C-alpha cells in the first residue's frame, strides 16, 4: 500500500510499554488499543471542546451525554458486529436491512400475541433468530458459494428490505407488549438499558476479538486467508460464524430499535450499513482485513454521534452539516493515521 516502511511502523498488538506491561493483559491491551486510538480520542476531545464552547451547558450535561449515548448505542452494536467481519477481510452491507427485517418479524401481531401469552423474551429471541438466520445465509453464500461478500450482502440488503416490506404489508407495526417496552426503555443505575446493551456488546466484542481463539482466527483470516487455511484453521466455517455474528448483532440492534421507537417497520435501518462501516474504518479497523479494534469502533461511533448532536445544538443548515460531516470524516482518518504511524515502534523490552 503506502511506503513499505509506514506499514512497519503500523501498530500491531503490543503496547509501547516494556515487558512489565506485558504481564498484565488488561492494562496491556487497553494501552495498546488506546495508543492506537490516540488520534480518535483527540478528535473526540476536540469535538467535545467545540460542543462545550458553542453550546456551553446545553451540551455538557448528563442528559445530553445520555442522549448522545442512547443514539449511538444502536448503530454501535451493529458496528461491533461489522468490525469482526471487516477484520476478517469481509464486509456486510446487509446489516441495516436485516435490522429492519428483524424489527418487522419480531413485532408481528402473532409474535406479539405469543409474547404476551408467554414472555417478552420471545420477541427478543425472534429478532435475534432472524438476524442470525440471515447472517447464516450470508455466510454460507459467501464461504461456500464463493460469492464476493460485497455482492452477496448487497443482494441481502435489497432482498431483506423487500421481504420486510412484504411481511409488514408496508405498514408500521406498533409494539404493545408492556413488559418488553418497560425493560427496553428502562434505566439501570441511572443509565438507560440501551446504553448498557451497547457497553456490554462492546465489552464482549473486545474480549472476543482480543482474548479468544475466535478473535485470533478472525484476525488471522483477515491477515492471510491462505496461510490460515494451510495452518489448519477451518476458514469457511469461521467465515460463516462471522456473518452469523454480524447478523446476530443486527438482531440485537433490532431489539433496541423496537424498544426505542416502539415500532417495527421495514424502513428501520436505512443506510445503517454505511454509517457502521464508516465508524469501523474511521476507528482504525483495516478495510482490507487483518487488523481490527473494537475500541476504535466505539470511538468512531461516538464521534459521529457527537457530531450530529453538536450540529443540532448549533442549528446548522442541513446542507452545511453534510459538507462539514464529509470534511470531518476525512480529517478524523488523517488524524488517526498520523497518530498511528507516529507512535513509537513497539519493541519488546
Amino acid at each position, binding site marked *: 500500500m503506502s511506503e513499505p516502511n509506514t506499514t512497519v511502523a503500523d501498530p500491531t*498488538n503490543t503496547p509501547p510499554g516494556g515487558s512489565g506491561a506485558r504481564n498484565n493483559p488488561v492494562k496491556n491491551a487497553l494501552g495498546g488499543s488506546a495508543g492506537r486510538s490516540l488520534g480518535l480520542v483527540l478528535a473526540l476531545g476536540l469535538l467535545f471542546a467545540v460542543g462545550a464552547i458553542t453550546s456551553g451547558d446545553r451540551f455538557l450535561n448528563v442528559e445530553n451525554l445520555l442522549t448522545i449515548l442512547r443514539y449511538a448505542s444502536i448503530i454501535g452494536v451493529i458496528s461491533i458486529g461489522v468490525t469482526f467481519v471487516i477484520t476478517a477481510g469481509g464486509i456486510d452491507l446487509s446489516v441495516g436491512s436485516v435490522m429492519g427485517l428483524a424489527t418487522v418479524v419480531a413485532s408481528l401481531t402473532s409474535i406479539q400475541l405469543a409474547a404476551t401469552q408467554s414472555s417478552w423474551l420471545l420477541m427478543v429471541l425472534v429478532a435475534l433468530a432472524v438476524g442470525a438466520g440471515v447472517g447464516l445465509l450470508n455466510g454460507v453464500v459467501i464461504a461456500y458459494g464463493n460469492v464476493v461478500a460485497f455482492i452477496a450482502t448487497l443482494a441481502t440488503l435489497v432482498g431483506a428490505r423487500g421481504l420486510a416490506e412484504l411481511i409488514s404489508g408496508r405498514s408500521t407495526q406498533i409494539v404493545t407488549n408492556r413488559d418488553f417496552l418497560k425493560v427496553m426503555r428502562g434505566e439501570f443505575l441511572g443509565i438507560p438499558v440501551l446504553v448498557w446493551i451497547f457497553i456490554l456488546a462492546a465489552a464482549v466484542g473486545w474480549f472476543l476479538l482480543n482474548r479468544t481463539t475466535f478473535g485470533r482466527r478472525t*484476525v488471522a483470516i483477515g491477515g*492471510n486467508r491462505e496461510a490460515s487455511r*494451510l495452518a489448519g484453521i477451518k476458514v469457511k466455517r469461521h467465515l460463516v460464524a462471522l456473518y452469523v455474528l454480524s447478523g446476530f448483532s443486527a438482531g440485537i440492534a433490532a431489539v433496541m430499535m423496537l424498544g426505542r421507537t416502539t415500532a417495527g417497520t421495514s424502513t428501520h435501518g436505512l443506510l445503517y450499513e454505511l454509517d457502521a462501516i464508516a465508524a469501523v474504518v474511521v476507528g482504525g479497523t483495516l478495510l482490507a482485513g487483518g487488523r481490527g479494534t473494537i475500541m476504535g469502533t466505539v470511538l468512531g461511533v461516538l464521534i459521529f454521534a457527537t457530531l450530529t448532536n453538536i450540529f443540532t445544538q448549533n442549528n446548522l443548515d442541513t446542507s452545511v452539516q453534510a459538507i462539514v460531516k464529509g470534511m470531518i470524516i476525512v480529517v478524523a482518518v488523517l488524524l488517526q493515521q498520523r497518530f498511528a504511524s507516529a507512535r513509537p515502534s513497539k519493541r519488546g523490552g
Partner: protein
Amino acid sequence: MFDEDQLPLLEVRGLSKQFGGVQVLKGVDLQVRSGEVHCVMGQNGAGKSTLIKTLSGVYEPDGGVILWEGQEVSLPHPTEALGLGIATMYQELDVVDGLTVTENIFLGHENASGGILRVREANALTRELLKRLGHSRLSPSAEVGSLSAANKQIVSLARALSRDTKLIIMDEPSAILDSGEVANLFRVIRELTAQGIAVVYISHRLEEIRQIGDRISVLKDGKSTASGLQVAETSRSELVRLMTGRDVENVFPPRHPPSPDAPVVLDVEDLELQGEFRKVSFHIKAGEILGFAGLVGSKRSEILETICGVRKPTSGRISVNGKRLRPGSVPAAVKAGIGLSPEERKSQGLILDEPVFKNVTLSTFERFARGGYLNEKAERDAARDQITALELRPADPDRPTRTLSGGNQQKILLARWVVHGTPVLLLDEPTRGVDVGARAEIYTLIRRLAADGAAIIVVSSEIEEVLGLADKVLVIDDGNVLVETNPSDIDEHGVLDLIMKGSAA
C-alpha cells in the same frame, strides 16, 4: 572483463538507513564497475535487500552518498533508478499475477505509440527475450499467476533484460531455481557482462559466488566488513567468518538413520491427481527423512499439497499411523499430525503484519486456550522458547513478521510445526533464501526433529541439499516418480541423468 582503473559505475559511501528507530544500514560502502559481477554477501538480516532497495529508489537513505558514473544522485522513486539504467530483480517476487508474461515484462515501459499499446510487437520481443533465456516454451500470453515461482523469476529476469540497463541487481535470483536453471542464469549473466553491463548478485549459495562472481562485498549487521574482495583470492572459510563472525564447519550434520523396526508414520499409496501427478507411493518411518529431487515444475509441491489436504486426490490413499486420512481437508490433515511449510512463505505461510509469536502459534493457538479464552502469556512463552531455540534474529516475539529478513521468516514456519509437534512434516523448499549459518541450523533442526521421531519430507531444488539431508530419495519428473533410492547410491549428475532419460522416454 573489467578494467581495474576505470571509474566505478556505481559507488556507495557510508550509506545508512533506519526503520522506525531500528538502524538497518550503518555505513555501507560499495563500488561496482561496468562488466563485473559483484557479489554482495551477508547473513539473513544483514541488510542486503535494504541496501539494494536504496539503490533502486524504493527507500531513500538517511545518510551517505550514491554516485552514479561519478555524479552524486538521489533516487526518490524507482523511476529515477530505472531511468539511470539500474534494473532490479527483487527478492520478493515483484510480478503482477493478473497480467500476462508480456505485460509484466514491459510494465512501466510498454511498447506503445501515443499511449496505445503495440501488443504484437511486445509479444515478439518477449518471445525473443524468453528464447535468449532458454525458455521459449513459456508463452508470452500466459497469465503470470498461473506460473510456478521459478517461472515468475524468469519473467522477472526478462523484465530486467528488457530495459536498456547498465546495471542489473539480482537479489537471490537462484533461491527458487534448480541447478539447470541456475546454469542457464549464469549463461545469461556472462552474456551481459560481456556487453559491459554490471551485475550485482546476491546469494547465500557460496558455490555460486565462486562460479560467477568477480568481486565480493560483505555486510554484517548493516556494516560493510569487506568491500571489493577478489573472489579468486578469498577462501570460503574467510567469507563465512566475514559474514558470521565465526566458523561454520560441517553443513550437513551426521545422519541418524531410523531403526529398521521403527513404525511407518506416513503411508501414501497410489496417490493420483489427474493432470498433475500419477501413482505416487511411498512410506516414511518415524525418524526418517524423505527427499523429493526434481526440476522446477515437476509437481513436487502438488504432491505435498495433496497429502496435507489442500488438493483433493482423484484416487489413492493416505494413512497416518495406520489410520486412513480423509482426503482434501487441511484441518483433518493437521489433526492427524501433518504439517506443511509451504513454498511461498509470504503469500502462503505468514501473516506479515502480525507479530512473530502469533505466526509461530498459528496452528496451535487453540492449545493455549481454555473455553476459547486465550492465555497469550503462555502462548508467547512457548513461541519465545522456539524463537530462542532456532536463533531467530531478532529474538523478539512481538516484532511484526514483515520486518524480518527472509531467512528468519523461514524459521518461523518451521517453529510453527515444532510447537505443534506434528509427527509428519512436509517441508517445501525449507532453506530458500536462508544464509549459510542459518542453513546449517535448519539442517540440524530437521535432523533433530527426525531423531525425535518425526517423519519428514523435504522438497528442494538444490539436489545437493536433498541428497545431503534425506535418508531416502524420490526422483520426480513431471508428476512421475522415476525412482526411489538411497542418497548414497546417487549423486547430482545421476539425478539429472535420470530426469533426462525420464523425459526422453
